[in-house]
């Protein structure tokens, strides 16, 4: 069928001329019992972006959102007859409709923004996948029960296994699978350093108005700081918690656009034996559980402080992304 692409393009063009079909529907997995860290971050990013654009939307939780999505990834939005999935295509779809947050940026800033977005997608997303699917403790006690929660036995085990294989394969190709946890935290630290440096002294990444980068970073930082990690991977939130600018930025977006009290708590550590499925769900909203950093994470901090040359490598990374 040679004319599929053509008809798609025509449909897209025609769609661009149509007025906004209101409201937009955002499909995502169930937040309380099903969604996993990487998906949660992406869903939050899209929600933040839509709110920043001032678009009305309606969240539709579906257990099979991942399978409904045209690309197989969540979230996706239904806008009239159109289905658009994932953050980047959603952003370009919305800008084709005329509401863009990055329209006024100069060419250099735009290129920078693309570079930072790739940085986040290449580092934070992979780190989240790693924590969920490679770290054995998290995999067994959190990821598998949550991912399989919407399917009956024995389908849950089969689908968990399939998904694990799929993610492992992907991380292997990207060279993340064989990393140690410390290396992963190191990558996250690099990424955050670059982001925090860009943010230095400003409200948003590009001046006083938010852009899609702000939405994306908000989504990831919020997901990473509010998710209670197991002791084995609590270094993740500890790593992020040291970047005060990013936490502040996240808090600001949260209060401005989500009209919620900031519930970002840094360095939460849950003891393995007291943790259950329920405490997980309920504790995301609690402020009280501010635990001091554990000895492990202190050791980690010291280890990371030795690497002073991180910033340079980060800049190098950025340049590569710009070229890419």
């Amino acid at each position: 069928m040679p004319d599929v692409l053509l008809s798609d393009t025509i449909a897209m063009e025609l769609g661009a001329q149509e007025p906004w079909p209101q409201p937009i529907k955002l499909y995502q997995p169930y937040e309380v019992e099903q969604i996993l860290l990487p998906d949660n971050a992406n869903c939050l990013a899209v929600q933040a972006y839509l709110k920043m654009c001032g678009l009305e939307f309606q969240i539709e939780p579906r257990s099979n959102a991942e399978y409904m999505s045209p690309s197989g990834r969540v979230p996706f939005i239904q806008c009239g007859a159109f289905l658009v999935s994932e953050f980047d295509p959603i952003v370009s779809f919305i800008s084709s409709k005329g509401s863009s947050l990055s329209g006024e940026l100069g060419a250099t800033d735009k290129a920078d923004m693309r570079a930072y977005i790739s940085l986040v997608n290449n580092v934070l997303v992979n780190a989240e996948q790693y924590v969920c699917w490679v770290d054995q403790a998290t995999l067994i006690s959190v990821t598998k029960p949550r991912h399989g929660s919407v399917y009956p036995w024995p389908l849950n085990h089969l689908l968990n296994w399939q998904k694990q294989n799929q993610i492992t394969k992907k991380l292997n190709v990207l060279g993340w699978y064989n990393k140690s946890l410390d290396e992963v935290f190191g990558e996250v630290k690099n990424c955050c350093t670059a982001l925090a440096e860009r943010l230095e002294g400003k409200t948003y990444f590009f001046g006083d108005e938010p852009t899609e980068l702000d939405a994306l970073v908000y989504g990831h930082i919020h997901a990473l700081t509010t998710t209670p990690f197991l002791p084995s991977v609590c270094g993740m939130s500890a790593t992020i918690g040291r970047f005060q600018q990013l936490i502040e930025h996240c808090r600001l977006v949260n209060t401005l656009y989500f009209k919620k009290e900031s519930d970002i708590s840094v360095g939460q550590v849950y003891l393995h034996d007291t943790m259950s499925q329920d405490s997980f769900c309920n504790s995301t909203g609690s402020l009280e559980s501010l635990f001091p950093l554990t000895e492990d994470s202190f050791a980690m901090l010291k280890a990371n402080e030795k690497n002073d040359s991180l910033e340079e490598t980060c800049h190098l990374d950025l340049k590569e992304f710009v070229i890419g």
Partner: protein
Amino acid sequence: MGTVLAKEPQAPREFGTTSHNRTDQKREDYRKDYEHSAYYDQERDALPRKPTLDEPKPVNLQRVRARVDKVHIDGLVRTKDDIVKAQVTEMFKAKDFQDVIVRAHKVRGKLDALGCFGNIGVYIDTSKGSDATPEGVEVTFTVSEMKRIMGGINTMVGNNEGSIIIGARAPNIFGRGERLQMEYSYGNKSSTNVSVSAVKPFVDSWLHKVLTASVFSTTNDLPWSGYKQCDTGFLLDLALNRGGTGTLKHNLQYEGTYRNISASKQVTFRVREQSGPSLKSALRYIGCIDKRDSLIFPTTGSLIQFTTEVAGLGGNIGFIKNEFVMQSNWSPHEFATFQLGFQSGLLQGISNDMQISICDNFFLGGPLNLRGFDMRGCGPRCEGNSIGGDVYWALALHLYTPLPFRPGRNSFGDLFRLHGFINGGNLTNCSFKFDRDLTENLKIFTNNVRCTTGAGIAMKLGNVARVELNLIMPLLFVRSDVLQQFQLGIGLQYL
């Protein structure tokens, strides 16, 4: 049967020496025409005979008393004696010669049904030796066992699709009819089907039980509904049949299937929102009475089949599904056969926690189903995709005649029939409730009934499948239906 010609009984022959080369010839005859029950004719032709001067006189076989003294089974290698014995014991109940022949035929069918033997020959001879009775006969079944492993590549047509099948099977593994078979088929519409099944027959009592366990994986593309379905599952089937060849058959099945529906690109959201994996765990009962004289072009007899399926024993799919199929044939004249076919089905949910997926729904339409409509072309639709319904009925009345002037009579020409038909039906989605008014429920027989009429030519393929080429005129239809004026259909099941 009545009277047939028989040989003089006073000419005993030495079995196994002179007649061996004739065996093959007899088998050939037998295979060619074994549907006919006038079986003794061939028996007579096959046996060596002395030229007789006087014309053979008609003999009433029912008056020729006979007693089966011995039954021999030749050619058993690894098949165990007990299952073969259980099949042939009824030979000893024969009272007269006709009875012997009828029972021999029946036993041959039973031995064939064991699935252990390739060819089965039957000899009836007078009994000799010291313990022979005056009216005694000896019956010899010459069997040849199948090889340990068999395989083949063949083509098949089914459900409007041609496919190639690569199969291998190991018959009679432990000597009691157990077999293992594997099959892989690939269709021209990129559907694939892999199945491995183990079959264990229990044939030693009057009730034949066949237990089949199979694992399968199928992929089907359904462009009319806009999705692709992948099934992977396990099926346990217990078939019950009186005597192995009776007309009443029961099947009890358990099926556990993991279904994955992937929506195609341009599909309505109604279908898309049902994509994803689901697990069906269901019990099914199939009861079938088949008294037709042929599968594809029957001239007399009828078929009644009930299917009840209860899903929801585990898994996340829950429903009760009932289906009824009926076919009745009547031939008032040699050249005219009327056939009435009726199908109906009802699908009900059992609880709100259990879903019903689009692939559990009923669909109507197709060249061998409700003729005149495209595949799944009748019934509820959403943005051009057929979404199926939960209750349907379809009725078809055919009139079959042989080809005019009977070209290729008794050979190639008998594969064809001309037929004229009128068929109708309805499929809706009315979330059937029994507490509602009956007239409300019966609206399916009055509102939006589809009806088409037409004529065409039908052909049988290998006595299992049929091909139809039809020209159809629609009489009653609904705006959203997809109609077709010319239809070519190939399939195993037909309305």
